[in-house]
């Protein structure tokens, strides 16, 4: 075995680089990328993973190799060579990590800037959002997708009625425009309000491809809005409005998780975000609007009993996945009571 050590070092170095590069791209540790921001953040993570795996192998390899190679022989009581340092080597292992972390800092800065973190309009945490959503909040106002009694839906109509005097319940779907959605965290739920249409919902619906600005507030204690598939998180702070910007990219149904300890049921504070096509989103908004406000001038007539079966059942139609025609054939008995 007379392989020169320089060749061994070179081979090890090449192998190390290849393994690191491969692992950095194939670690499979992250969930699906469902927002425009996610690939940028994953790119940063993959680079850090590549460097990290290289460093990991160097350190663990050195320790394991040394553990076998330099283990004291049973009959050997002498000391090792009295080497107290090596200035060029020490400069090298100071300079290389310094360059790496500065590079990572610049790269992180760039990613952060690209995803809008440095946008001067995007950081106005302190004063931008009047906290009118606090008024819209009281418990019963969670909209149709959650199982609710018709009475609750009806009472919600009162709150929403004046906001909906125009048929503009279909928001203008200019895809470049930022859509504002208000998100309020409270023990132990999220409430999402769509100011354009007045829809209030317990789960978040967003159209893919449209920039979203989430105006986040908290009613009681700290919460944090987190969608792992979007790679984004923002605390909800009582008394201090915060915001989060993102653009959903991939259609799907993802969890919304509260990431800041908020009490005994913290782990149960979950809902969904549904990223859907703009058409489906519009349909959903419409169905929600119907649910809360069938026809503006009927909004005064609140009794569920005075609605036609179609009007009454409309909010449930999309959830049940049946068509209005199919409903006609069912004719539930209690609707005939009057």
């Amino acid at each position: 075995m007379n392989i020169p050590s320089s060749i061994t070092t070179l081979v090890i170095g090449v192998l190390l680089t290849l393994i690191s590069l491969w692992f950095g791209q194939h670690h499979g540790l992250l969930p699906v990328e469902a927002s425009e921001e996610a690939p940028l953040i994953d790119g940063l993570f993959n680079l850090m993973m590549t460097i990290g795996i290289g460093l990991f192998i160097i350190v663990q390899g050195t320790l394991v190799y040394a553990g076998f190679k330099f283990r004291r022989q049973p009959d050997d009581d002498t000391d090792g060579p009295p080497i107290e340092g090596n200035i060029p080597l020490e400069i090298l292992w100071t300079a290389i990590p310094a360059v790496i972390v500065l590079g990572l800092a610049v790269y992180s800065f760039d990613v952060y800037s690209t995803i809008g973190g440095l946008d001067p309009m995007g950081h106005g945490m302190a004063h931008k959002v009047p906290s009118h959503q606090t008024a819209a909040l009281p418990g019963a106002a969670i909209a149709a997708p959650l199982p609710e009694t018709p009475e609750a839906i009806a009472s919600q109509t009162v709150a929403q009625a004046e906001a909906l005097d125009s048929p503009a319940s279909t928001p203008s779907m200019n895809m470049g425009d930022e859509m504002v959605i208000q998100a309020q965290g409270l023990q132990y739920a999220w409430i999402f309000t769509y100011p354009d249409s007045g829809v209030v919902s317990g789960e978040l619906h967003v159209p893919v491809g449209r920039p979203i600005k989430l105006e986040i507030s908290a009613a009681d204690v700290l919460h944090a809005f987190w969608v792992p598939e979007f790679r984004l998180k923002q605390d909800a702070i009582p008394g201090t409005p915060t915001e989060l910007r993102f653009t959903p990219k991939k259609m799907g149904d993802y969890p919304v998780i509260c990431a800041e300890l908020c009490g005994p049921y913290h782990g149960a504070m979950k809902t969904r975000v549904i990223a859907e096509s703009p058409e489906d989103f519009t349909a959903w908004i419409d169905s929600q609007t119907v649910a809360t406000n069938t026809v503006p001038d009927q909004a005064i007539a609140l009794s569920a009993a005075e609605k036609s079966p179609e009007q009454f059942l409309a909010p449930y139609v999309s959830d049940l996945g049946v068509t209005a025609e199919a409903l006609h054939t069912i004719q539930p008995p209690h609707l005939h009571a009057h």
Partner: protein
Amino acid sequence: MTQVVQETFSPSPPAPEPGKRDWLKYFSFTTDHKIIGIQYLVTSFVFYLVGGFLATLVRTELATPESDFVSREVYNGLFTVHATVMIFLWIVPAATGAFGNYLLPLLIGARDMAFPKLNAVAFWMIPPAGALLLASFFFGAPASGWTSYPPLSLMVNKVGEAIWIMSLLILGTSSILGAVNFLVTILMMRAPGMTLNRMPLFCWAMLATSALILISTPVLAGALILLGFDLLVGTAFFNPTGGGDPVVYQHMFWFYSHPAVYIMILPVFGLISEILPVHSRKPIFGYKAIAYSSFAISFLGLIVWAHHMFTSGTPPWLRMFFMINTMIIAVPTGIKVFSWLATIWGGKLRLTSAMLFAMGFVSMFVIGGISGVMVAAVPFDIHVHDTYFIVAHLHYVLFGGSVFGLYAGIYHWFPKMFGRMMNEKLGQLHFVLNFIGFNLAFMPMHKLGLEGMNRRVAEYDPKFATLNLVCTIGTYILASSTIPFLINVVWSWTKGEKAPSNPWQGLTFEWMTTSPPPAENFAVDPVFTIGAYEYGTEEAREAIAAGPVLAMAPSASHG
């Protein structure tokens, strides 16, 4: 000391034969730094067992996705008290109090600490504070996490929260008193000839640690007092319903609690820098780089606290400031790691239990360091903040780092402390179980966090069930690894083989006196003649062969 070659020593003050009531000294208000160090070590280890028991309960709850083992309220109390006990009653007192008190005077050639009575006062604050904290379980334990963020901390289990604040104030005071003592002792009481640049590296680490404690702990005390007013008197410093700002608490809390990470790891860096050269039979590689990097870490550690708050609405430019500072810490930390590797490289490694744990420390700490740089990057941290990725990261730093290092320290200095050798076979078994259990318990948590499991939850999505079960099994293995260690300690302490004065052939002053050292450590005043790490030289061989010269009466040592 170098002219004495023959082994014909007669340890002048023969270690007083342990009397029947000798153990009582460990329960007394003694001012002997060695006994105080052992008091710290044993007390904090008892709290480590308590904290470990709480961790086992937490992991038992998390073995299944449903909340089915304890109530949610109790669960939140379990992880809150687990973290508080592990940080404030185990790692901080063990790393600074136990090893700082036991080793510093011996390493610098002093007869005791600068303020022996203050030292005893600082220790005796710990048992009542710890008992107080554990008693909170009878009144509803604090349940808002060890960070105790308002407003939640002002709303749940108020009695437990008040006890938590009181307990931490006492422990913080104890820590400050200890730090004053360490600083003065290191700066004023070194043996003649021992300049700062000749001190053993543990002294450098303790210097940097003590400075950190003195600067940061008072800020925690301030935060806790204000939080206590909000809780008990109804003020609104942090309570938003009265116009307070909960984020200000986070700033004050982390101004201490990030440096606290370095308070827990810097002394252990020092221990590792002492242990690796002895068992590698080589000088420490790059003494000055290791010494000064402690101070670089200590300084940088003071200006990174808001990296715990990247999602708290911190202004973007401040996030960038804290991100860059945090990443730069990787440089001095890297210097230490590479220097340790170079110390081992080409040595004559004795793979004793102490050495295994020291090498395990380097191996595990590096993983925590790599994930530490990752979470420093703001865009990535926004994804993993408050997830199991963070839980994995912090345990690789504080368990894979601090606790592995503390075990290395115990195995290395046990013969000096108690005059008995520990059993190597049991030590190796302890290491293997510890290493496997630790990695099984915490490695999968990286993936859990990246995929979307948030921390501090009693229930979780069933898709995470398998990895969580692996974590729980790892925790049980980790918990069981304590059994061989406890058997080893009890058996060795009472029946172990008598330890020679210098079982590992070390060069620092503590190995030049008897095991255990006499009441005032040395019979002669030590003078610095040989560097702490000059292995491989003729002088070192002679000094080691000379035996416990510092314990011999002056006439005997020149006889």
